[in-house]
Structures are given as structure tokens and as C-alpha cells.
């Protein structure tokens, strides 16, 4: 008797609590690294905080960090959906299939997957044109290198990373025909010790510019320890390493997008779509170019940035050949986003001049 009474009131209390919570829009975030990585995940979390700041009491955000890409991600997303999330942002390429799988089971929950290409009725995809930022990096790197060797730390051989390598190389080559890229694949997004090792190896082999497509600031620390090596902040400004070794950066700004999408869930206007914004829309920012870069290089880099922002120049403009010498883009032709075999969205080859093979 006593027990049933307690249970009933407990059930009632839970019921009341749920009703009270129902006014709130619950937003979930799945992160691939820790929020203190100083790079990729850090910026996504800034986006989450911006959502909280904008909507205050009307939203509740939850996040899970350091979620491995694979089956465990499905467990985390399922858990979020079961706990009443209205919209879930899954913020790494490797969450693509898990997101689609979980989205099928929860048709009423909205999903937003970053940097992927699989869309569904309740799954939107969004990404930023990081390769526009890479163009500016290549432009600076090509002129700053004295050894003509630029080291590049890749994470996984996915289109996003390959676009970045190609874009940086094309624009470095344009300003410095002798430039050579050494590419090392770390096969991780976040492993500071390994990232530092990769940077050290590249420096030992003559690189005096290190570009990274991994998430931590470890390569910056390794470059700083080595002396005369320059780096660029990745995903986040990483300004704690300015003015040397970090001479500029690519900054991801997810806040406006997150605010807009959460707002769309609130007013019921959310629908599945594909977003791919660049410097022009403000999703990609170029961090301040430090004084370690001579003024004229800085000026031309800013001009390049402006032309990318207003659309007068596309980072992949022909004539460009593929690595094997076969033509990719004719003179003046620009790469298409989705159409054709050689579209940017699924880019899986190097441009002419780069050495080595793209891993499968």
C-alpha cells in the first residue's frame, strides 16, 4: 500500500516534470573530441553555447564528447533521442551512417550531420567550405617557405581533407612553382602525441611550414619547440600560438547556423536541407594574419580572401589536371559541387604535382 502510493506519486512527479520540460526545445550535440581540444570540437561547443545564449530558458542543450566514430556513436545518439532530444547535431564525418541509422528509428527527431553527404527526410547535412580557407593558407605558405617543403598532417582520406590538400597545394604552387608537399596521414582526428610526432617527422624531413587537418594544438607546440617553422590554426583560431609559429588560421563559425536551425525547430519550419557555406556566408573565417608575415603577402592574401568571399574567384578554377595528368577542369571552368564524377563533394584524387597516392 505504502509502496504503491510512493510509486504513484513518483510517476506523477515524473509526468509533471516531463510536461514542464516539454516547453523546452532539447538540443543534443555529439562530439568526436573533448570540448577542450582547442580546435574542431571546441568551435562546435562555442556554437552550442551561442544557442544557449540566444534562446535562454527556451532551450536545453546536452552534449557527449569524445564519442568514437562507429557503433558507439549510434548508442549515444539513440540515448539522446530516447531522452527527448528534438534536434541532434552529429559533428564528425564518421557519424554519417550511424546518424542515418538512428534517424530511421526516430522519424520525429531532427538530425543534422556535419561534413557528410547522406541526407534523409529528418537528416540535414551541413558543412563549411574549408577549402576556401586552405587557398589562403596555401597562398601564404608558398611564399613563406624557405626550404620549399610544406608538411601536411592529414587525418583520414575523406573528400573534405583531400579538398583541403588540393586547394592549399594549388595556391602554394601558384606563388611558388618549386613548392613540394609532404603528406602524412595520422588516421586520427585527435591524438596530441601522435600529431606532435607527425609534425616533428615532417620538420626533421625539411618542412618549414606545417599545415594540419587534425584537431589538437599539438602540432603548433611541436613547431614552436622546433623554432623557425610556421603553422596555421585549424578549425579554431589557436591564437595562443601567435604570432609565431601560428601566422593565421581557419576558423569555423557554426554559431549562426546552429541558432538558425534550432530556431527552425522551435517555430516548426525545420526541413531537411543541405548547407555548404564558405567565407562569404561567414561559416569560414580567416584568423588574423600575424606580423610574422610580410605586409605585401598579407595584403595579397586578404585580396584573395575577399575574392573568394564575394564569389568573383573560385578556389578550384581551371586549367587544372588530375595527378595522372588527365584534364579535370578546362581553362576558366570551376569545379561543381555535386554534379559529375569529379564533383567537389566526393573529391577523391590529388591534382597534378602532388606526390603519393590517396589512401583508399
Amino acid at each position: 500500500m505504502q509502496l504503491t502510493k510512493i510509486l504513484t506519486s513518483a510517476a506523477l512527479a515524473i509526468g509533471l516534470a516531463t510536461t514542464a520540460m516539454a516547453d523546452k526545445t532539447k538540443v543534443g550535440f555529439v562530439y568526436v573530441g573533448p570540448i577542450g581540444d582547442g580546435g574542431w570540437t571546441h568551435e562546435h561547443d562555442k556554437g552550442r553555447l551561442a544557442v544557449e545564449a540566444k534562446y535562454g530558458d527556451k532551450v536545453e542543450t546536452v552534449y557527449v564528447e569524445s564519442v568514437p566514430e562507429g557503433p558507439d556513436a549510434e548508442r549515444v545518439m539513440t540515448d539522446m533521442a530516447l531522452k527527448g532530444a528534438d534536434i541532434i547535431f552529429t559533428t564528425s564525418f564518421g557519424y554519417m551512417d550511424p546518424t542515418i541509422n538512428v534517424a530511421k528509428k526516430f522519424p520525429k527527431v531532427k538530425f543534422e550531420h556535419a561534413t557528410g553527404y547522406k541526407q534523409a527526410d529528418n537528416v540535414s547535412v551541413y558543412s563549411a567550405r574549408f577549402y576556401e580557407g586552405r587557398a589562403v593558407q596555401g597562398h601564404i605558405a608558398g611564399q613563406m617557405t624557405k626550404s620549399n617543403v610544406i608538411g601536411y598532417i592529414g587525418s583520414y582520406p575523406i573528400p573534405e581533407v583531400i579538398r583541403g590538400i588540393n586547394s592549399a597545394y594549388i595556391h602554394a604552387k601558384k606563388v611558388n612553382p618549386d613548392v613540394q608537399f609532404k603528406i602524412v596521414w595520422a588516421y586520427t582526428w585527435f591524438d596530441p602525441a601522435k600529431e606532435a610526432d607527425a609534425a616533428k617527422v615532417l620538420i626533421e624531413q625539411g618542412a618549414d611550414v606545417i599545415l594540419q587537418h587534425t584537431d589538437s594544438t599539438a602540432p603548433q607546440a611541436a613547431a614552436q619547440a622546433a623554432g623557425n617553422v610556421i603553422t596555421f590554426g585549424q578549425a579554431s583560431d589557436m591564437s595562443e600560438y601567435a604570432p609565431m609559429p601560428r601566422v593565421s588560421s581557419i576558423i569555423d563559425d557554426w554559431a549562426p547556423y546552429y541558432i538558425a536551425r534550432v530556431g527552425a525547430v522551435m517555430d516548426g519550419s525545420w526541413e531537411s536541407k543541405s548547407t555548404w557555406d564558405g567565407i562569404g556566408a561567414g561559416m569560414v573565417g580567416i584568423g588574423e594574419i600575424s606580423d610574422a608575415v610580410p605586409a605585401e603577402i598579407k595584403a595579397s592574401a586578404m585580396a584573395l580572401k575577399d575574392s573568394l568571399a564575394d564569389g568573383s574567384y573560385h578556389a578550384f578554377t581551371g586549367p587544372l589536371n588530375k595527378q595522372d595528368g588527365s584534364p579535370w577542369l578546362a581553362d576558366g571552368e570551376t569545379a561543381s559541387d555535386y554534379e559529375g564524377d569529379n564533383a567537389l563533394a566526393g573529391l577523391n584524387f590529388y591534382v597534378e604535382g602532388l606526390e603519393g597516392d590517396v589512401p583508399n
Partner: protein
Amino acid sequence: MDLSAINPVLLIASLMVAATPLLLAAVGELVVERAGVLNLGVEGMMIVGAIGGFAVSVESGSPYLGLVAAMTAGAVLSLLFAFLTQFALANQVASGLALTLFGLGLSALMGQGYVGVKPPPMGTIHIPVLSDLPVVGPILFGHDPVLYIGIGLVAGVWAVLKYSRIGLVLRAVGENHEAAHALGYNVIRVRVLAIMFGGACAGLGGAYISLIRVPQWTEGMTAGIGWIALALVVFASWKPWRVLLGAYLFGGINVLQLNLQAAGIAIPVEYLAMSPYIITILVLVIMSADKSRAPASLGRIFHASQ
């Protein structure tokens, strides 16, 4: 392909650096497991050591004080595990996993003010004449002191386990805790001390990453090295010199494969990336074809009344 870009002297020197955190954590865990305790909290103790050592060396300006703090931090955290498993008689696997989760969370909290801070540099040992020798100098005599401590620790652990009375008691506790108890040895005390030693080693290994190898503080920066150390102890058949070999193989092949990638060698990158794991496991499994086995009481709970 341009193999001449690889400098073998720098390669060997950097593989020793890459192997050291793994070596330190693994040799500590080896002692713990030889005492019959399975502590899966290595990763947690490492990361707490990493931030503890980092914070103290930044505040005090002395990297050596940082290393001491890291060992203390690791040992103190391991005491939590010791209390749970030796006095509260909790399950060792669950307690170890909990310790890792707790360590990761605690370190993230402790490290909030230390992101982007540069630690005071730890100098390398410079011995006149010896360190200036070509080839041998940079490989053998040009490192930071912790690297030598790691190698010395392996030799020490081996000698103590094999030749000393303390080592004999520790092994007895690990092989058959009832018999050791019947002989009048204090099983719990031996195990608690072993657990603390393991914690101190793991803490030192973590601080090696945050103070010397990277050097910076980033949340979650040990990124699984503690788990590799656990696997290494098993594959090394609980033998100190094999742990050293395994750690150097793993660290070495890791650095070597990055070097080969950067030099543009024509081996598919996927194979290079998985090679450290495969080669280390292969070598150690082949070596363990002899009669080595796990300590008989490993993971079993002891209570004097049983």
C-alpha cells in the same frame, strides 16, 4: 620516394621519446599485475599525472617538481582504486574502468586554466664528449632524464622481481594469495604498495606526454596510450624486458611509419598506419610461445577470512 630524407639518427632518437610514456605506464602496470591485481585505470592515472605534472611545473617553473607531482597524483588516484578493491572488495575490472572515467573527468576540470599555456622546458642531459659523439651521441646521450629513468626502471623492476626477497613476496602474492597469507605475508599491504607504484609510473608516463613529448596540455591528450600499455603487459607475458622491447617496437614503428609516409615510400598508407599494432603483437606473441602465463591470482579478490 626519397629515403635519404630520413635521418636515421634523428629517427632512433625520436622513437625512444615516442616509446617512453608507454614504457613507463606498462612497467608500472606489470608490477601491479604481478602482485595479482588488474588495474584497468592506467589511462585515468596517466591523464591525471599529465595535468598534475603540467600544472605544478607551470606554477613552480620547475619541470622536475612537475614530475614529482605527476607521480604523486597518479599514486593518490590509484589509492582510490586500492581502497575500492582491497578494502571494500569491489570488482577490479569495474573499479579500474571507473578510475579511468573519473581520471578523464577530473583532469578536464583541473586543466581548464592551462589550455594554451607553455610549460617550462626540460633540458636534455649533456655529457661533455659523450653527447658530442657522432651518431652515438644523439642516440644514447642526448635525451631528457626521464627517458633514462624509464630504462632504469625496467632494469630495476626486473632485478627486484628476480633476485630480491621483496620481489619473491610480490610474486607469491600474485601467484597464490592464500598461500602467501598462510606464510604470514600481508597480502593487502603488498598489493596496495604495488598499486601505488603502478599509479606513480602511470602518472610519470602521462607527465612525459604533457611536459616533454608534446609539450602542452590538451584534454584527453593521452588518447588511449594507457589501454595500449595494458595490452602490452599481456603480450609481453608479464616480463619487464619484453615490455621494453614491445614499447620500443610500438613507438619505433609508429615513428618509422610516419617517416616513411613523409618520404613518400610506395607502401599503401593503410598498411603503414596499422603496422605498429600488428608487428608488436606478432613479435611478442611469437616470443611468448614459451611457458609464460598470467599470475595465477590475477584479478581475484582476497579476503583474509576466506
